[in-house]
């Protein structure tokens, strides 16, 4: 099976600062990748580049067999650190709007299904702005799952989420991976993905420094 994602010599400069310094890697489909590294290592920039939000200064990204990321954006799910949700609307209203953007069939049913999948209640009429941080994170994950994407890009999905809810999210992600989705999770809570992630990708100063099937010493603590 061809790799789901190929990045070649990816460089991203913000002025004089190079957030990515020649990242080259292949990522197979149907696997869950945990992307680890200190703040400023380039994890989020890499994820945004894969999502098509940050055009690279140099290098190329091939996704699902094409370098035209716009043509495959309907098959991507992206969850950022902010919620990407309208605070004044309920979860169902938010998802209903985003379902229109992706032309999702049977959208009300699909919205309700993904909200239930992240263990929230679709009938909740409260605006998202009044949700707890953890609920907002889960609703944000529901939004990323809405279009049944082949590739999921998740930036810090477990931040501010309590441990039991995080474990539920991990088990949901494992199920999606088993269903053939390719998942990238940027996280500082690598231990949550121990035993679930297929590969731990370590970044440092804008480069991938190692890829290991197991977590390394410092991360397990």
């Amino acid at each position: 099976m061809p790799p789901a994602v190929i990045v070649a010599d990816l460089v991203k400069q913000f002025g004089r600062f190079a957030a990515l310094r020649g990242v080259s890697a292949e990522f197979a489909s149907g696997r869950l990748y945990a992307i680890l590294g200190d703040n400023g290592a380039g994890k989020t920039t890499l994820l945004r580049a894969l999502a098509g939000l940050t055009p690279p200064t140099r290098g190329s990204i091939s996704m699902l067999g094409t370098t035209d990321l716009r043509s495959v954006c309907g098959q991507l799910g992206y969850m950022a650190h902010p919620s990407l949700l309208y605070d004044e609307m309920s979860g169902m209203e938010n998802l209903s709007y985003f379902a229109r953007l992706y032309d999702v069939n049977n959208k009300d049913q699909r919205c309700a299904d993904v909200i239930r999948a992240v263990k929230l209640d679709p009938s909740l009429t409260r605006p998202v702005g009044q949700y707890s941080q953890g609920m907002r994170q889960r609703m944000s994950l529901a939004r990323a799952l809405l279009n049944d994407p082949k590739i999921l890009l998740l930036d810090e999905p477990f931040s501010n989420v309590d441990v039991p809810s995080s474990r539920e999210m991990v088990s949901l992600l494992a199920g999606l991976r088993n269903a053939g989705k390719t998942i990238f999770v940027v996280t500082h809570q690598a231990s949550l993905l121990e035993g679930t992630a297929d590969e731990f990708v370590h970044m440092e100063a804008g480069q991938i420094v190692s890829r290991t099937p197991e977590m390394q010493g410092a991360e397990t603590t």
Partner: protein
Amino acid sequence: MSTVASLTRATLAKDLRLEWRSKDAINSMLFFSLLVVVIFSFSFDPTAEESRQIAGGLVWVAFLFAAVVALNQTWAREMRNQVLDAYRVSPAPPNALFLAKVLGNFIFVTVLQALMTPLFIVFYNLRALGPAYQLPIVAGLGTWALVVNGTFFAAMSLRTRSREIMLPLLLFPVSIPALLAMVEATGAILTGEFSAKFWIVLLAAYDVVFTIASLFLFGFVLQAE
């Protein structure tokens, strides 16, 4: 085309719903325009004839400044929680977002005009001596000129550090031909001294050119970092 139309409708409905709940844009615009009407009426105290001469400029400057308030709010809403990124990663066409924003702003400014025009008439003792039926045409074309450019430049200044200052700096110079046409056409209709047709045609041409240019360029603005 049907996708653009349907997504424009969906985005417009979402924006109207958000505005109905927050009332951010309408409240700020109303308050601002009300202040302009009251302060100017105390400052000038003009006779009816003088009012007709200056009303065109006064009304449109008030609406232009008020529109800037709404225009800043429109995109600020998309920047909260970085919701705009959700649109950018979706396969939805950029033009649908732009058209929805323009239509939304057009509705907000039109509502403002509907509420403020009676006040202008009372405070400035206005009565059209020319063909009054042309006033709604000028209002429609003029408002479109303001919001189409304003929405575009507000999106352009979105990621700048001082976007509240940047928007008027970009918008006002480009709007001068439209503003001139609006003021002259309104003055012509109120005084009845000359025909407003030339200015109306100019305004319509301005609208067509800038709408097409904005639609063409908005995709680049949306995808810019």
